[in-house]
């Protein structure tokens, strides 16, 4: 009898919808790390921002730089507009990530060769540009043509992967606030990225973080810049709509 009752308990869906309001991973950081992230002198991610700024102001093949159109240090870039990425691109008939937007500018306005996705320079440029939007609220519109990409990302987010056979949703929706060994599970948002990772001591793109998530689950990751990871980015960003951009955040 006792055993049957216990079985019933195990069968009940646990914490069906664990959270209603998005909460940034920032809230889960130790106080010293929060203070480090908030202080531009102490934040180690600011190295990547500075390197990105230098690239931003450097002339390309045709003598123009990003700064030629967007102002020195990107003064003319609009935080509200940057917070909307990935946006829908009619030319691509699909999403355009911030990194692709930057790469397109390099190719078409600076007459440079495009860089491979997640190239170190490209991540630094992205970190610099997204840092310009620090504090702006993530605002991805998935009500229109990006909807199918959002839905595809949502499916991936809920698909069990790898030898551990878990999905993102298990940790980041169902068991939020509970402990996985020494780590409190947060909601797994993207607003801190590109972020400085304490384990690697370097800046990490969002797709780089995805590859780490897949490795943790002992799964075969998709390529950076793949349709799969771009749809995951669309889903994750929209799922965190309303959160303040923290780039460069500091994470483990």
């Amino acid at each position: 009898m006792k055993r049957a009752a216990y079985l019933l308990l195990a069968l009940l869906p646990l914490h069906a919808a664990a959270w209603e309001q998005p909460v940034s991973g920032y809230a889960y950081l130790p106080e010293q790390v929060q203070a480090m992230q908030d202080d531009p002198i102490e934040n180690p991610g600011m190295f990547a921002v500075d390197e990105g700024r230098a690239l931003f102001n450097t002339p390309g093949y045709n003598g123009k730089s990003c700064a030629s159109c967007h102002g020195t240090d990107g003064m003319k870039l609009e935080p509200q507009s940057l917070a909307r990425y990935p946006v829908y691109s009619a030319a691509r008939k699909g999403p355009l990530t911030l990194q692709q937007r930057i790469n397109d500018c390099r190719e078409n306005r600076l007459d440079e060769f495009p860089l491979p996705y997640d190239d170190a320079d490209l991540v630094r440029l992205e970190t610099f540009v997204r840092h310009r939007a620090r504090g702006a609220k993530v605002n991805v519109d998935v009500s229109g043509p990006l909807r199918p990409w959002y839905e595809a990302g949502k499916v991936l987010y809920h698909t069990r992967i790898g030898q551990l056979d878990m999905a993102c949703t298990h940790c980041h929706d169902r068991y939020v606030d509970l402990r996985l060994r020494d780590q409190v599970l947060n909601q797994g948002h993207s607003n801190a990225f590109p972020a400085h990772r304490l384990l690697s001591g370097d800046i990490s793109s969002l797709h780089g973080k995805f590859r780490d998530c897949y490795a943790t689950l002992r799964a075969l990751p998709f390529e950076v810049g793949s349709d799969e990871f771009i749809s995951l980015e669309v889903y994750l960003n929209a799922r965190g709509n309303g959160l303040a951009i923290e780039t460069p955040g500091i994470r483990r």
Partner: protein
Amino acid sequence: MPRAAALIVLCCLVAAPPLRAQESYLAWQADNLAIEAPLGGLRGDAARGRAIAASRDKGNCISCHMLPIPEEPMHGTLAPPLFGVGARLSAGELRLRVVDEKVVNPETIMPAFYGDPARYYRPHPEFAATILTAQEVEDVVAYLVTLQ
């Protein structure tokens, strides 16, 4: 060592398949939410099972469950504590839960430690086998039985 001999040794090392790949997957059958027969008829060792439950790269049970393993400081809190689980569940019931908790609860986060590798989605090629070997499963079950 003569170079040829060294080369032969090297070739053997390179050619030898990883140990895990040599053990073929043993299909199992659950009845009444239990697997009564030990996998492969193997006998478990509770002390080894305890070490597997604590290890990060094997069972890592304590990442989710609290267990009486006080020398490891941080145990997870997302799953039910396993104190006294050997009194609540029979050896056969414990075996099924370690082998594949999804038979009990299809929605569970708990990995199947002896699930059919052919059913993984996108496993990393280095991890295309069961998480634990049949012997390791039996060791863990033997350990859980001692938790009275």
